């Protein structure tokens, strides 16, 4: 009897497309951020936060239908990862996807209009909050079924590998999603085929209402990646620059033919799972501790301290974003409903 295994080196797979071996930029450091980049990261986080604050207000006005899943508290993940991407990269995400879409530059009026179910919505009102899609920005799909986006991201990664344009495919998903079969199949395929896929797990400690300890044998999800002998890294998901750095390394590895990476971002959602959830299952102390680590004020303080931004400038960014969200929501709310009585055949089939 031999010793129990801890992890293993990947075996060389036969019959797969040849990796672009030339530039294996594997352990390179991330390209350094300029101060302008830093302000950009701050702006992105603010844009997401203000968008969702407005969603919440619009919700109370009855403009948002069904349910919504806000990402307050997790903005640093979307902002940091998307900063490391090119325009022609592909992204999949979930019902909790507003942040990812905005970080990729989705037009906020079209986003609001979609949440409001209007004709001018980014999906013409057909998708709603859980299904924002925007192909022009590589936003290839929001998946309402937990885990379902991961195999799709693997397909986009395979597409990128075959096209040899050094694109990268990123998928965002939660801690809970690492328990479902689709996660496993996707991780395995990406690793066997050495695909340029970056798996970004936003570990916010909860599924809907259940703590990770109910559903997963440990709290550090990088352990999952060890099971595929996949490169992996654990990062403070509330530190936007740390997220960016981890993502930049992973993205460079993927572009260089070095295969997939699993990034675990430790983070927390400030609100409940969805609009009807008061999140009583969380201890107030836990919430309070995480609120102190809110990625936005933390980063703002850091930028101010480092002299990258003044308080006045920061306030102006917030005010501008708030105003933009408010104005966009107002325009979206004034937009027409989608026409009824249409023949939907052309929308169903191409």
């Amino acid at each position, binding site marked *: 009897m031999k010793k129990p295994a801890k992890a293993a080196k990947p075996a060389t797979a036969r019959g797969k497309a040849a990796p672009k071996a030339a530039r294996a930029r594997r352990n390179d450091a991330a390209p350094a951020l300029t101060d302008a980049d830093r302000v950009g990261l701050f702006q992105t986080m603010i844009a997401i936060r203000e968008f969702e604050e407005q969603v919440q207000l619009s919700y109370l006005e009855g403009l948002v*239908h*069904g*349910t919504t899943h806000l990402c307050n508290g997790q903005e640093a993940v979307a902002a940091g990862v998307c900063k490391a991407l090119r325009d022609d990269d592909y992204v999949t995400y979930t019902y909790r996807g507003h942040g990812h879409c905005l970080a990729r530059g989705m037009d906020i009026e079209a986003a609001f209009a979609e949440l409001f*179910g*209007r004709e001018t*919505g980014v999906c013409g*009102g*057909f*998708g*709603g*909050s*859980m*299904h924002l899609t925007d192909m022009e920005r590589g936003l290839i799909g929001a*998946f*309402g*079924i*937990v*885990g379902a986006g991961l195999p799709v991201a693997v397909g986009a990664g395979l597409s990128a590998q075959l096209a040899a344009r050094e694109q990268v495919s990123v998928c965002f998903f939660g801690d*809970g*999603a690492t*328990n*479902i*079969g*689709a996660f496993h199949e996707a991780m395995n395929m990406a690793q066997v085929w050495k695909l340029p896929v970056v798996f970004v797990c936003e570990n916010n400690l909860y*599924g*809907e*209402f*259940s703590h990770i300890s*109910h*559903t*997963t044998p440990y709290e550090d999800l990088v352990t999952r990646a060890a099971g595929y002998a996949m490169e992996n890294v654990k990062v403070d998901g509330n530190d936007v620059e740390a997220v960016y750095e981890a993502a930049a390394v992973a993205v460079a590895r993927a572009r260089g033919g070095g295969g997939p990476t699993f990034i675990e971002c430790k983070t927390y959602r400030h609100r409940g799972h969805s609009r*009807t959830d008061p999140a009583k*299952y969380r201890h107030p102390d836990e919430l309070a501790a995480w609120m102190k680590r809110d990625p936005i004020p933390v980063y703002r303080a850091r930028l101010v301290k480092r002299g990258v931004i003044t308080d006045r400038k920061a306030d102006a960014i917030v005010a501008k974003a708030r105003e933009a969200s408010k104005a966009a929501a107002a325009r979206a709310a004034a937009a027409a*409903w*989608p026409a*009824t*009585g249409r023949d*939907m*055949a052309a*929308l*169903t089939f191409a």
Partner: protein
Amino acid sequence: MAEREITYREAILTALQEEMRRDPKTLIMGEDIAESGGPFKTTLGLVDEFGPARVRDTPIAETGFVGAALGLALTGWRPIVEIMFADFLGVCFDQIVNGIAKHRLMSGGRVKVPVTIRAIGGAGLRFAAQHSQTAESWMLSVPGLKIVCPSSPAEAYSMLKGAIRDDNPVLVLEHKALLSSKGPVPVGSDDAAMPTGPRILRPGKHVTIVATLAMVGRALEAADLLAADGIEAEVMDLRVLRPFDASAVAESVRKTNRLVLVEEQVAAGGWSASVVADVVTEAFDYLDAPPIRVTLPDYPLPYSPPLEDEAIPSPTRIADAARKLMRDTGRG
């Protein structure tokens, strides 16, 4: 036993509680069902009474825990699983259709598979295409599986109790738009047989309207509209989708000679087609005109309220279908 006015949600909870008290070999598994009582609160408080071993939060792993239900059932337990949205039956489909439903026959009838699968489905709440399906059409053809669908608190209560006691796999399809609806329920009842066929909710002689789940209420509303025109509709709740038996519908048609079916699924491959096919066989000479099916249109359900509303059969559309039948048969 006492008749109480409670919600559909409470009816489900009460049935679970009573059956779990009655039989220590019952247990329930699902996502966020223990301390949190489930996203639709149909299991609220059960964990306090029965403990976390019998009221069990699962990982997001429907294949895993539905498959586990088969293992539990084969080894002496009577598991109940909750599928949070019926749409998610897709991720554990294999375990249901190839595993749970077939295990008994493949063993030559030598095993029993007392598994209850509760799935909460249905449209109308602006949950868009992946969270609004009742999804029964996927499984109408699955031999070895029973499917029931409650349209009222009393039905939710008795069907669930019957399903739990049944020694076979039963899928209980609940409807999320009905959860807060109220009605009299004979709580504490020990009589919990599975329904064997449709129930007539409103007798009538001109046209038979068959519906399930949330469409039952709309069919009853349509009957009110029709009554104003002097048309007496007989409204039936189909209740049982598997094993499938349309003979009670045929019987009603022998009286009314007209048939409208209201289905919250698309027309192709749905139960209404099977009802029509069977009624045509059994009561061919009694049909005065072709039955009309009022169903979802043939595209995935859109999110936007006007688009969703347009898609779901309304009382007006149902009544219009009945009126058309009356006209087509020279009684309009």
